[in-house]
């Protein structure tokens, strides 16, 4: 018997559920954050290098594309953080009841929105 392998189960066999959607989103944001960490390392190097390198990096980050990327990066970070805390709770043996799993899902989404707004509010207001 040929066993079905990981990525192809999602669209065809599984009905949409908030829990599984958040699970795959945890992976996607994890991958996105890993890619984003290249830019983070680049920024640190640019600050240390200064001069032309910093000017070019700064121009990119301050451009509309740069700001949008920064915003998406922060959303991904806050989501991965909140859902990661949920994962740690699962590792400790809490939150496995169906009701708790759904409640936790919505709590993670709400916390992501709150943290993102909270983080960007000072930037928007200034």
């Amino acid at each position, binding site marked *: 018997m040929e*066993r079905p392998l990981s990525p192809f189960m999602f669209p065809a066999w599984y009905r949409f559920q908030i829990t599984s959607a958040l699970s795959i989103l945890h992976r996607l944001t994890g*991958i996105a954050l890993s890619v984003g960490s290249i830019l*983070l*390392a680049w920024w640190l190097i640019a*600050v*240390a290098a200064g001069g032309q390198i910093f000017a070019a990096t700064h121009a990119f980050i301050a451009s509309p594309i740069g*700001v949008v990327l920064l915003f998406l990066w922060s959303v991904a*970070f806050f989501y991965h953080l909140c859902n990661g805390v949920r994962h*740690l709770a699962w590792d400790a043996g809490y939150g496995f009841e169906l009701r708790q799993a759904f409640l936790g899902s919505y709590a993670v989404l709400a916390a992501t929105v709150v943290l993102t707004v909270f983080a960007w509010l000072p*930037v928007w207001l200034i």
Partner: protein
Amino acid sequence: MANTPSLSDGTALRDENVLRRVRQFGSARDGSREWQLQRKSALALIPLGLYFVASMLWLATSDQLTAAQWLSSPLPALLTILFVIALFAHAVVGLRSVLLDYVHTRSLLIAAALLVRAAAILLAGASVLAVLKLFLAR
């Protein structure tokens, strides 16, 4: 079912790593090392990440002098170095577990995992060096 090879056999645990085999030869004591590293780095990244991201949103569009001054003060320098190390350790474990799930050829899996690890070490090393340069030059 047991005798039919499936796609996942290429990356399945080798026989010597399976618990019932390990028991004959010795303990499997470090079997959970990666799992633990992922959780421990996750715990470290909660305070470090919140601190760094809050600082970054404030600093990202600032000029070089402000950013350099911030990075060369002792506490931000230390916490940034720790953040970068925890971040790349966490990313390596996470990306490897993604590769384990989706790459079903052993040679490709080893090559991709090595590439991820090498890139992470390079980026982490360069980041630490950058912060150290700013800190030591103050």
